[in-house]
């Protein structure tokens, strides 16, 4: 067995994840390398979901009965856990949404409806990057179309990094918001936050960071990032689907207008007008995803107990090993950084002329689950002149043996189509 420095005891960790024992296609044990799409769930999270529904289920923030109080305490307790997980200065800065897409759309809509000095309109600009997930592209295209604002882009270098050489042209005095991903979902690139935040602050623009591919994999400190908003999703970090997070600085959340209206987000309602509850409730209209928040809280507990710094070290070791082994495969081209430095554990590649669909299908037959396609980041594929990629992405339970299985699988793919 391959021993690498920094590895977690994956044998012990894997016992927490029932799905990893799954066998597919006549007795092949699953090799799950699609973690950038969604992670598997540990028993601790599944138990928390069950226990919530079996013992405490009620609607939150209303009713005086014991179940309502328990459900509220669990839901708000999950907010405390998430706040501590990202080092938020206040729990009231943590807004629960249904996923990262909703978090990103929420900010775009706040700014579209905001008064000065936040308002995005035809005199202003929005800056994003060519490596964004579609969920951090389309909300800004919509906002630009609706307001007449200009959408500007950071390009990419040949080795899969952000090209910041023209930062002063992309982020200008007119820029109201800069939104970019901390870690690319398709290439794994970890982006230089500080340089972008500094420029944005110089011109008085707000900064939104999409941390969907970062929160599951590395310590996340929203104060250290220096951004104004940070978005991520629960299901990629061992939590259930249907729960996402938007963190925002308190004074912004006080100033900016709500987007969705409904129950829970109001102070008083009359037929003339309504006043709004303070954040975070101002942005959580309607019955929230209660069980899902509780499940995310359990996921945060689980990850914290292992240690985010240890998880990051584990993934760095696995990534280093995977990059090295992948580069040994003939005709394989990594799309993105071809080293483990400043990169996460999602690795995209092409394999000669073999279409990623065919690569993925033949790997699947061997029990290896990877993602193929454009990964909701089509501009990246266009930039590098490829129709699609195959992406292997690792997590805290991924082992060197699974990297080896991937390499053997790719050898089989090459023979099959060779």
């Amino acid at each position, binding site marked *: 067995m391959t021993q690498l420095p920094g590895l977690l005891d994956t044998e012990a960790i894997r016992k927490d994840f029932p799905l990893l024992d799954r066998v597919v296609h006549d007795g092949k044990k699953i090799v799950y390398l699609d973690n950038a799409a969604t992670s598997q769930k540990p028993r601790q999270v599944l138990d928390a979901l069950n226990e919530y529904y079996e013992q405490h289920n009620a609607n939150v923030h209303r009713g005086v009965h014991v179940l309502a109080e328990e459900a509220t305490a669990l839901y708000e307790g999950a907010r405390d856990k998430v706040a501590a997980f990202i080092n938020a200065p206040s729990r009231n800065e943590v807004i629960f949404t249904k996923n990262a897409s909703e978090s990103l759309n929420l900010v775009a809509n706040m700014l579209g409806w905001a008064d000065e000095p936040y308002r995005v309109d035809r005199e202003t600009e929005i800056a994003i990057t060519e490596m964004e997930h579609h969920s951090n592209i389309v909300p800004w295209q919509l906002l630009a179309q609706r307001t007449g604002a200009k959408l500007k882009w950071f390009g990419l270098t040949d080795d899969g990094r952000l090209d910041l050489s023209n930062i002063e042209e992309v982020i200008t005095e007119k820029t109201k918001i800069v939104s970019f991903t901390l870690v690319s979902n398709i290439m794994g690139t970890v982006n230089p936050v500080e340089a972008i935040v500094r420029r944005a602050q110089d011109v008085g623009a707000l900064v939104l960071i999409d941390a969907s591919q970062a929160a599951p994999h590395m310590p996340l400190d929203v104060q250290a990032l220096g951004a104004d908003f940070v978005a991520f999703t629960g299901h990629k970090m061992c939590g259930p689907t249907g729960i996402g997070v938007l963190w925002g600085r308190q004074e912004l959340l006080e100033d900016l207008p709500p987007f969705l209206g409904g129950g829970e987000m109001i102070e008083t309602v009359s037929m003339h007008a309504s006043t709004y509850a303070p954040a975070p409730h101002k942005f959580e209209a309607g019955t929230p995803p209660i069980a899902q928040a509780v499940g995310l809280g359990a996921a945060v507990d689980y990850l914290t107990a292992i240690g985010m710094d240890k998880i990051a070290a584990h993934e760095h070791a696995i990534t280093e090993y995977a990059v090295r082994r992948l580069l040994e495969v003939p005709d394989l081209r990594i799309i993105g950084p071809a080293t483990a430095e400043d990169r996460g554990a999602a690795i995209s590649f092409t394999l000669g002329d*073999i*279409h*990623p*669909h*065919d690569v993925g*299908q*033949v790997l699947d*037959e061997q029990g290896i689950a990877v993602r*193929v*396609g*454009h990964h909701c980041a*089509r501009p990246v*594929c266009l930039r590098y002149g490829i*129709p*699609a990629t195959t992406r292997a992405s690792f997590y805290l339970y991924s082992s060197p043996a699974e990297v080896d299985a991937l390499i053997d699988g790719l050898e089989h793919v090459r023979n*099959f*189509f060779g």
Partner: protein
Amino acid sequence: MDSMYQELILDHYKHPHGRGLREGDAEVHHVNPTCGDEITLRVKYDGETLTDVSYEGQGCSISQASASVLNELLVGKELAEARKIQEVFLELMQSKGKLEPTEEMEEVLEDAVAFAGVSKYPARVKCALLSWMAWKDATAQALGGAERETV
């Protein structure tokens, strides 16, 4: 697996028939948005006879082999017969793997019957149908028909 990647499909993928764009009466460009497979396809008719189907594209082995089989199967046919083959192929591909091709079907489809196994994989059915839908669209345009259909 082998039920999807039949030797015949791999053969067509590696040695495609009639690939390349030649003169035609109509040209269409079809895309499979989920995976980025795409094809540009031209048809040429002499009266009711399909005299050529030429194409360029990029995509997986299934989509490329399917275009090659289409070329081999349909070129030289009368429109009515070509339409019938297309309909039978569509029926086979939409069968979700539950249709065992009959002898009659095999007679109509010839090499295309090799795609029967693909119908078990919902994500790949569109790959197999890409060129066939493009052909149908191009034919409608070439012959002035208004019918249009996408998968």
